[in-house]
């Protein structure tokens, strides 16, 4: 059999990672609520074959709960990073293409959002919207676009000084046409990669804020909630409640991060040919 080249290998690897994530997501969605509901008879069991992650103080199976929590986190992470990436593209493109005044105002806006610690800002937004899912989503979406917006601004500035853009303009193409045919094809990969690389941050922030008690309601299975509950049983030696769900979260984050890096290598014109 012919040896596959590096690009093909990378594509297959990335596809496999995406598949794993999709399977975890589907599992979380498909598991019925009742499956995670336990009985007090088997509360506080350490990990075993029947309960891979053990059970919590209410006898709920932590493995199922973690899976369900992960799918909730992934939904929030995906939605929040998608909104955030759209904001980033709009702000970045507007600040590069607009007048100097617009640029200054948007840069000031970025400084403003970066000037308050993200955790505090998300807390405030979540407080304003009465905690829960909406506040969490709005908070994460409102804080994660800054670095991507700066990146896109730089990219647009660089593209606009290219000769082929100048030629198009001399040929009488409108700036809308240039935007559509010259800028967008370059920005689309940046957008996708930026979105994927934002995703792990969004998940981590979701978990942190839920952990602090500002995110999802306590009855919802979410990683942050499970970990916050585990705090109470830490000194009782129930290590599995804290360690295993957290470890799953970290591995998911690493997986997404790696997939994002691969996607970047594949889509970036400078490294795509390697």
């Amino acid at each position, binding site marked *: 059999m012919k040896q596959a080249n590096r690009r093909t290998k990378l594509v297959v690897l990335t596809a496999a990672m995406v598949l794993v994530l999709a399977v975890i997501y589907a599992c979380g969605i498909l598991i019925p609520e009742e499956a995670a509901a336990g009985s007090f008879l088997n509360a506080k069991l350490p990990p075993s074959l029947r309960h891979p992650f053990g059970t919590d103080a209410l006898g709920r199976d932590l493995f199922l709960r973690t899976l369900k929590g992960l799918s909730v986190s992934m939904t929030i992470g995906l939605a929040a990073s998608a909104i955030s990436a759209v904001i980033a593209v709009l702000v970045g493109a507007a600040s590069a293409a607009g007048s100097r005044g617009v640029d200054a105002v948007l840069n000031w806006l970025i400084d403003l959002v970066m000037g308050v610690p993200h955790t505090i800002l998300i807390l405030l937004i979540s407080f304003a919207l009465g905690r829960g899912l909406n506040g969490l989503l709005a908070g994460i979406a409102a804080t994660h676009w800054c670095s991507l917006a700066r990146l896109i601004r730089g990219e647009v500035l660089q593209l606009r000084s290219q000769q082929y853009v100048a030629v198009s303009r001399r040929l009488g193409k409108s700036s809308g046409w240039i935007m559509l045919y010259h800028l967008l094809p370059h920005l689309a990969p940046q957008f996708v990669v930026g979105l994927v690389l934002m995703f792990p941050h969004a998940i981590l922030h979701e978990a942190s804020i839920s952990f602090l008690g500002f995110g999802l309601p306590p009855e919802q299975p979410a990683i942050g909630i499970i970990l916050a509950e585990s*705090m109470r049983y830490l000194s009782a030696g129930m290590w599995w409640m804290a360690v295993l769900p957290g470890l799953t979260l970290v591995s998911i984050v690493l997986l997404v991060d790696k997939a994002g890096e691969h996607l970047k290598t594949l889509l970036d014109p400078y490294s795509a040919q390697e």
Partner: protein
Amino acid sequence: MKGTLKRLARVFVGYGIKILSLLLAVSVISFTLVSASPVDPVQQYILGLGTAVSPEQRAEIESYWGVHEPPAERYLTWLSQVLRGNLGESAIFRRPVADIIGERFVNSLALMLCAWVLAGITGFALGCVMGMYQGRLPDRLLKKACYVLSSVPTFWLGLVFLLVFSVWLKWFPIGFSSPVGVLSREVTLWQKLHHLALPAFTLSFLSFANIALHTRQKLVDVLNSEYVLFAKARGEGPFTILRRHGLRNILLPALTLQFASFAELFGGSVLAENVFSYPGLGSAVSAAGLQGDVPLLLGITLFSALFVCAGNLIANLLYGAVDPQIREVGK
């Protein structure tokens, strides 16, 4: 000399205007957000009183707080008080917010400073090691470790440390900044440090991977340069090269990056303090948010913005002072 002074003055005025405008915007935004909240601060205040309140008394409190005034007017009243140093009274602690912030900031500062210094030193040292062994086994291992660490949430790391070092090994206490049941003036410095160690260690893990990877990249760039090739040709050993050419080029950018990371540091301290029940600003802000203590929430938000601005200002000034290219552009 006169030109330098003039330039410095202009830089300071420029930053001053920027910081003031940012703080003003933060105050407007946070005030708007808090006003939009469905949590009723009057109700929370009355709950905090712990006694039943008649409707007349409630109406009195409401008119005293200006609940029925338009939001813009309320904001201006609040702002004018804040500018005079009166941040209001906290509903959960029953004390002026400014006092609480001052007291808790000392605790938080001790925590953040320890973590900051620790992260800076370990990160820088690891970055140097990675850069010197570029592409070889130590570099690859450390790089992997740094990437993994930057994906680990602070609060979970805190939980794991708590589990391992406090519950299993019993090396460190489980929480708080001093032993329970001991009068605050009898707490020794050693006890305080003992309680501080684990949270600070956890918090330092937040940023040292970042600084290590940054330092590594800079050092690799320096070591691949032609002047280092020439230095090698002159017969300088790797450590002499690191000392003469490496450190001078990478130390200050790393320091700048450290100052620019105040926002993450503060955000991380919120989580670390909650895990370790450490009585700092971070645990105060989450308590304020959960219990609807609006004055405290606003006060800490403003304070955190001020803190981050100070860090960014130092980073910018350092950058300007250190990098000759930027210094030239400034002229």
